[in-house]
């Protein structure tokens, strides 16, 4: 049992001892109905990352983008200013004519420039390496959008309604890929895009813990060459690409 879990149970026990018998029953019923004890929280032992095999990523396929939109309650982007957390790009080497198709999203850098420039501390990196925006303190200055070399962040220009329960979003804040943090916190071990990609049979996205030497992503990264986008900036992104 985790320290937090133990404290929670100990506190519940104490409350039960102090209060009248009737209240005690209600307290326990409440603790059970509220979805059990709180989750353990982000651990610094983990570093979440992604490996994208561009040789398996099909041109024109947007399954990951669709899955991301569905999971996070984003409307499909129709204008260049619409929020988009993951986008598909096609690249071509002019000399040889070789093309590749790949998704680009927040690269969850170990040294994120968006965090460096944020004037309010809203942009931050979690213990497990996920780079997020705390919308409670985001003032919408968009400095992070300018600092990001991957164009990963979007600004919400329009008022929103019908947000997902797990993904609060609103006008006036910057946002980007969260690596489906709400799923990870609840014990899920994959993201919507990776899940959709493997379900569609492509298997181009591998999600996992970069710090765990036995995880699939670590084994794959050890076995084959991978590329960091804009490796020259030395940001140590958590998203790596193969076959570029």
């Amino acid at each position, binding site marked *: 049992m985790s320290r937090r879990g133990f404290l929670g149970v100990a506190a519940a026990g104490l409350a039960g001892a102090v209060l009248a018998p009737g209240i005690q029953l209600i307290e326990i019923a409440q603790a059970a109905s509220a979805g059990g004890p709180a*989750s353990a929280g982000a651990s610094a032992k983990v570093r979440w990352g992604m490996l994208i095999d561009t040789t398996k990523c099909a041109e024109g396929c947007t399954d990951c983008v669709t899955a991301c939109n569905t999971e996070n309650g984003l409307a499909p982007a129709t204008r260049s200013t619409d929020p988009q957390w993951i986008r598909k790009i096609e690249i071509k080497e002019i000399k040889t004519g070789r093309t590749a198709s790949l998704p680009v999203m927040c690269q969850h850098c170990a040294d994120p420039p968006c965090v460096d420039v944020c004037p309010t501390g809203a942009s931050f990196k979690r213990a497990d390496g996920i780079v997020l925006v705390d919308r409670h303190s985001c003032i919408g200055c968009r400095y992070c959008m300018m600092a990001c070399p991957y164009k990963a962040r979007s600004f919400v220009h329009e008022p929103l309604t019908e947000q997902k329960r797990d993904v609060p979003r609103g006008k006036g804040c910057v946002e980007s890929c969260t690596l489906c943090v709400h799923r990870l916190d609840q014990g899920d071990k994959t993201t919507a895009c990776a899940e959709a990609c493997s379900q569609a049979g492509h298997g181009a996205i591998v999600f996992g813990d970069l710090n765990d030497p036995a995880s699939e992503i670590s084994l794959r990264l050890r076995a084959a060459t991978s590329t960091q986008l804009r490796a020259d900036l030395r940001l140590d992104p958590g998203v790596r690409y193969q076959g570029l």
Partner: protein
Amino acid sequence: MLHIAALLTMLAALVAGSSALAGDGRTPRPVIEPATAGTQCVEPSDVMRRYHMRFLEHQRDDTVRGGVRGAKYSLKDCIDCHASAKNASVARAETNFCVSCHSYAAVRIDCFECHTSKSPKLAQGATK
């Protein structure tokens, strides 16, 4: 005498006009929708009335920055018990739980510009 009667009628009209307000004393009070039957709040009502914003603010930092979810003062749990049986929301209509009090106290809340105010448990049965 006539003056007093007129004043009383005026007062009565005022009270009747503001249907969202109630109270037997001189001070009108907001009508607050009761929580879902059979549920128990995490703190006594008087504590929640005074300190709910502190509980929520403290826990939101643990959740957003620390990734701790489902702790005691969860906004989701608030919504689940307090959402209206009519529209499954705590903030859509003037009579809904959060809004009834906050409009009375003239304190604007931003929570539901980003967070959904609806409870999925009630949303299936309720009309929009």
